[in-house]
């Protein structure tokens, strides 16, 4: 083939110099090759799998070629990076081959294919300035161009078979370059799309989480707002209720003081007084749930406060057959608190625990304190009682929620505890514990945080 000879002499062959006419056999081969590659490329969206396939097909169609690499241009750094490199005799994907940088860069710079054959002048003289030609009998490099922009090159060479490269091979490789460039672009778009989708999914997930957090915060705010409102209202209501109750109470006392009253009248009067006392207990408790002034807060030792409450009720606990374990952390930081109010909280929790253990065989009350690394102190009051019905666990802090018989409990003990803990910018919650009983936790901040605005 005369054409081949003239090309190889010229060393650097641009596609301008390629003849337009192909032989029927070549055409058949080329069409077959490009169709096959196109099919593969169209299907493949994974860049690396795709590029590897391109090299494999080159090996299949061009028997002279025994090494191939696809080098992609990093748009940011201008660096040429080996995306795949393969040797025919090995299955190894990233076989490090000493592809000619000079050739690749020439192609990138000029945008035209380059062919080097063992007969080529530059190759022999080494004027390409590349020492990596050792053992390379011929090489071929075509640009990967998409919409006029060079993305990289396909580089192939032969180290075993002499005789140069047929210009038909170059044409084929050039065609392959265009197809591959499109495929790379597609794969890139796909990757980008995938990344965009991932990003969107991540953003969506973040949004969902943010929403959930917001809802939780809102629920908490609504809850504490509700309780604060009840607290404020309670003080006013307590006053409004206690005035008429006072009048009724005095009237009953005056009636009782009358002489010659029969038992049939004394008895209903006693009942009336008892019921009035109920009203008084409830209203006074409600009054207690309302806020006190910030001024009453002092920096104090929580352990001392707890000990005082325990000392106070220890005799009663002993009578009830309850063993009390108190584990107070010795290094507990001092916290700002209204001591009387915190005593009230502990007292309410302990009396609830005592009541809950009435039917238990093993009655153990455990009170612990410990510092929380997040800048707070944690109090736990646990019992071996009957525990809280899981359905009630969210309700126990609600005002008037009680499982006690009418007249027995006000259902305000935990509400008051909740309100007081709120005043201290802390948290209180309930859980059932391993022993089947209930555990109440209080987390109080060490810092004097201003109350929620």
């Amino acid at each position, binding site marked *: 083939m005369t054409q081949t000879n003239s090309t190889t002499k010229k060393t650097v062959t641009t596609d301008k110099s390629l003849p337009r006419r192909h032989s029927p056999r070549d055409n058949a081969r080329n069409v077959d090759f490009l169709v096959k590659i196109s099919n593969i490329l169209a299907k493949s969206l994974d860049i690396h799998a795709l590029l590897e396939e391109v090299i494999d097909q080159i090996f299949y169609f061009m028997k002279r070629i025994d090494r191939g690499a696809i080098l992609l241009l990093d748009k940011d750094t201008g660096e040429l990076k080996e995306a795949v490199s393969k040797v025919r005799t090995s299955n190894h994907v990233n076989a490090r081959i000493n592809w000619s940088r000079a050739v690749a860069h020439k192609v990138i710079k000029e945008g035209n294919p380059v062919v080097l054959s063992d007969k080529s002048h530059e190759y022999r003289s080494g004027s390409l300035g590349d020492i990596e030609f050792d053992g390379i009998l011929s090489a071929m490099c075509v640009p990967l161009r998409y919409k006029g922009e060079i993305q990289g090159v396909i580089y192939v060479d032969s180290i075993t078979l002499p005789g140069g490269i047929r210009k038909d091979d170059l044409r084929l490789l050039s065609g392959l370059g265009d197809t591959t460039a499109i495929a790379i672009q597609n794969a890139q778009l796909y990757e980008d799309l995938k990344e965009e989708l991932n990003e969107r999914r991540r953003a969506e997930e973040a949004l969902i989480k943010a929403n959930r957090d917001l809802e939780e915060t809102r629920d908490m705010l609504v809850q504490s707002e509700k309780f604060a409102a009840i607290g404020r209202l309670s003080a006013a209501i307590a006053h409004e209720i206690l005035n008429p109750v*006072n009048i009724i109470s005095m009237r009953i006392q005056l009636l009782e*003081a009358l002489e010659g009253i029969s038992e049939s009248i004394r008895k209903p009067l006693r009942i009336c007084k008892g019921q009035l006392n109920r009203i008084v207990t409830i209203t*006074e408790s409600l009054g207690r749930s309302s806020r006190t002034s910030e001024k009453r807060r002092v920096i104090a030792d929580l352990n001392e406060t707890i000990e005082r409450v325990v000392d106070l009720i220890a005799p009663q606990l002993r009578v009830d057959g309850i063993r009390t374990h108190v584990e107070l952390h010795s290094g507990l930081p001092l916290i700002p608190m209204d001591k009387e109010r915190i005593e009230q909280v502990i007292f309410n929790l302990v009396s609830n625990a005592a009541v809950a253990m009435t039917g238990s065989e093993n009655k153990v009350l455990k009170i612990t304190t410990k510092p929380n690394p997040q800048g707070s102190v944690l109090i736990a009051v646990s019992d071996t009682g009957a525990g809280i019905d899981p359905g009630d666990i969210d309700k126990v802090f609600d005002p008037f929620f009680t499982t006690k018989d009418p007249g027995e409990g006000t259902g305000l003990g935990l509400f008051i505890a909740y309100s007081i803990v709120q005043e201290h910018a802390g948290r209180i919650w309930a859980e059932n514990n391993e022993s089947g009983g209930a555990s109440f936790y209080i987390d109080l901040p060490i810092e004097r945080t201003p109350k929620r605005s």
Partner: protein
Amino acid sequence: MGRILVVDDEIEACNALEEFLNLKGHEVYTALDGPTALAKVQEVRPDIVLLDMIMPGMEGTEVLKRIKEFDFDTSVVMVTVVAEENKAKKTMELGAFDYITKPVDLGYLENVLLVKLLDTAD
């Protein structure tokens, strides 16, 4: 026994207390608000004033201060609800003799009055 002025914005509260104190043999006067109470104090010079803490217009504490300014030999017993107990305790510093909580235990009230009256009798 004693001369007692009952101050409460609720007439039924005044009535009940008046009835009870009359029964116990005291001389009872009533007032439904602060200004009236101050006028009554000057007029009848009671031994004891039973003074409601929370009243519309002039608050009990304010009435207490003004009574103390008269420098009469008048003792003041504050009447309050438990929620206001801390405020009530403070009135002791302002010169109140004692405080009782609503609902008023009449037996207890009588004891407080007796203590005061026996005190002044000495």
